């Protein structure tokens, strides 16, 4: 039995890890505060960022120059945001920046796009319904089957029978193979919902990193290879199917660049923002004149105003995250932490993070505390207890006290 004595050390490690999981969580539970950034929208009238903040039970409307506005003034400088109010009041200008305005046009070009890392880092089931893109009906209908992408093309499976429709599969596979498709897919992008105004099918990246546009038109396969510019390694795509039919979707490359694929010859257009696809959220509010893009990172938020027509960068506004004093304080006594969940991923897995080494000096304090506790504990701390307290701080100390090391 003697050899099992050393399993005691396993308990030590387990307890330290367990505490580094629990204690930070409890700390967060008690102290976490939401970081709020002011609502920011780029004015198509003054061509400057305007912000809306809620402070002391009052809305404060400002622009980047420090001018403050009433609610009515605010509406008038942000006609693309407040167009419904303006239209109702009959205050919507006929033209703006030399372009005629109508509620219909504004609606068509006002759209939203969001990206969160957990969309990419998420388990998914690779089955897709292929809608009829040209049904002639206003509403899309479920196709009655789903397809999977295989080595040799696609297979359509009927949910009623759970069997493959070989004729259909063959027909669509042939079209893909004819265009040089080499399955299986690295990724498939599309919007598998009938709640969209039209359907553009799917975009499939094959094993050789060739991108194909794949859809069903008049019950026939439509396949088109899209030329990817050389330096782009697309890892994620989200199709848009927006009313203005300008692009097929957004593409994120492995070097964290954002592109749109234009409906005009499938051109890749870079959107001039900086972000990290593993960590940052993207929020886009588009309008006829500007794309309002907000990139939320761990350290703050950057707002970009981008020209809707040529995608040139017009202006940026940075918000720094107010340092959370409680989180800052925790660095001194929570030297590292173990987490299984992350809002940046839907996968559960252990994730370690540690504070910079300098904070670990505080561990000395815990060692002293341990020594001072001697009369109460009625035992001298063992070298092991001192070492683990020195290295792991409060976790080691707690473990020492619990296990009476």
């Amino acid at each position: 039995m003697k050899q099992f004595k050393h399993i005691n050390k396993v308990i030590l490690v387990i307890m330290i890890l367990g505490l580094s999981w629990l204690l930070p969580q409890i700390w967060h539970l008690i102290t976490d505060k939401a970081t709020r950034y002011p609502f920011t929208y780029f004015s198509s009238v003054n061509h400057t960022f305007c912000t809306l903040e809620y402070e002391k039970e009052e809305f404060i409307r400002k622009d980047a120059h420090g001018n403050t506005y009433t609610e009515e003034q605010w509406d008038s400088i942000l006609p693309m945001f407040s167009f419904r109010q303006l239209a109702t009041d009959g205050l919507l200008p006929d033209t703006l920046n030399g372009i005629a305005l109508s509620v219909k046009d504004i609606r068509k070009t006002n759209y939203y796009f969001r990206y969160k890392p957990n969309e990419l880092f998420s388990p998914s089931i690779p089955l897709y319904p292929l809608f009829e893109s040209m049904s002639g009906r206003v509403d899309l209908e479920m196709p009655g089957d789903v397809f999977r992408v295989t080595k040799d093309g696609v297979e359509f499976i009927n949910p009623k029978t759970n069997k493959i429709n070989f004729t259909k599969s063959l027909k669509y596979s042939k079209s893909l193979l004819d265009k040089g498709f080499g399955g299986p897919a690295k990724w498939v992008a599309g919007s598998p919902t009938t709640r969209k105004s039209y359907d553009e099918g799917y975009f499939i990246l094959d094993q050789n990193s060739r991108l194909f546009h794949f859809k069903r038109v008049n019950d026939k396969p439509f396949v088109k290879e899209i030329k990817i510019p050389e330096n782009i390694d697309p890892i994620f795509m989200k199709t848009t199917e927006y009313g203005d039919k300008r692009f097929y979707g957004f593409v994120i490359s492995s070097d964290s660049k954002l592109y749109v694929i234009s409906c005009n010859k499938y051109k890749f257009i870079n959107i001039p923002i900086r972000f990290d696809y593993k960590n940052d959220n993207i929020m886009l509010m588009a309008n006829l004149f500007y794309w309002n893009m907000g990139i939320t990172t761990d350290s703050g938020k950057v707002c970009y105003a981008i020209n809707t027509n040529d995608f040139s960068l017009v202006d940026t506004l940075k918000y720094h995250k107010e340092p959370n004093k409680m989180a800052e304080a925790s660095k001194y006594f929570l030297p590292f932490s173990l987490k299984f969940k992350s809002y940046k991923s839907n996968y559960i897995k252990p994730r370690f993070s540690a504070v910079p080494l300098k904070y670990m000096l505080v561990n000395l304090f815990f060692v002293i505390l341990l020594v001072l506790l001697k009369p109460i504990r009625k035992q001298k701390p063992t070298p092991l207890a001192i070492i683990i307290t020195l290295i792991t701080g409060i976790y080691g100390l707690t473990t020492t006290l619990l296990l009476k090391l």
Partner: protein
Amino acid sequence: MKKAFFYKEWIKTRWFLLAILIGGILVEIYLFLKLGRSFRYAGHEHLWDVIVNRNQFMFHTLKYFPILAGLLIGVVQMIPEIVEKRLKLSLHLPLYESKSITLMVGYILIILISIFIISFITLILGAAIYFPLEIIKSIAITVLPWYLCGITAYLLVVFCCLEPLWRRRIINILISVCFLGTYFLSSVPGAYSKNILTMMIIPAISFLLIYLSVFRFKTGVQTN
């Protein structure tokens, strides 16, 4: 001797193991009846759609079966050993103590894992009637941690029961709760798919911990 150990544990636990097996079968019958009703209500295509595109998982009820089975069989096997102090008898049998414990725990593990495999295969075969491979894979990877959790639960009950000191036993129970908690951190189907290895390490560690408890029991630890 191996046979004799298995014979003893068999006599002791057979009815409970049978109850677990029947429990597992009933859970699956329920799950498939419910699935059938969902197909009738929602239609095949719609049900596939919500499974694929809206993270709907059809077999959530199964989540509790392995952990309950593990806890039950652990309690049934170990609590009487401790309360009636029979463990001393088992450890005095002419074998090395570690071997005696390995045989006792090994027997339950073999049967528990067998029941879990039967349950798992039935589920997969049943699901294969209604769903394509992609959904089957998602189901498999979603339920696999639950079964691992059941095995871990059993081992941890043994770990806690064999510990001789109450103070330490409470610490062990807390450790066990943390261990088991890691299997229930997400309801997203397939959330553990990148982490099956860690989820397998946990039962392995739990298995090791049993020997720590036996060692402490043998040494008659009284103070820490």
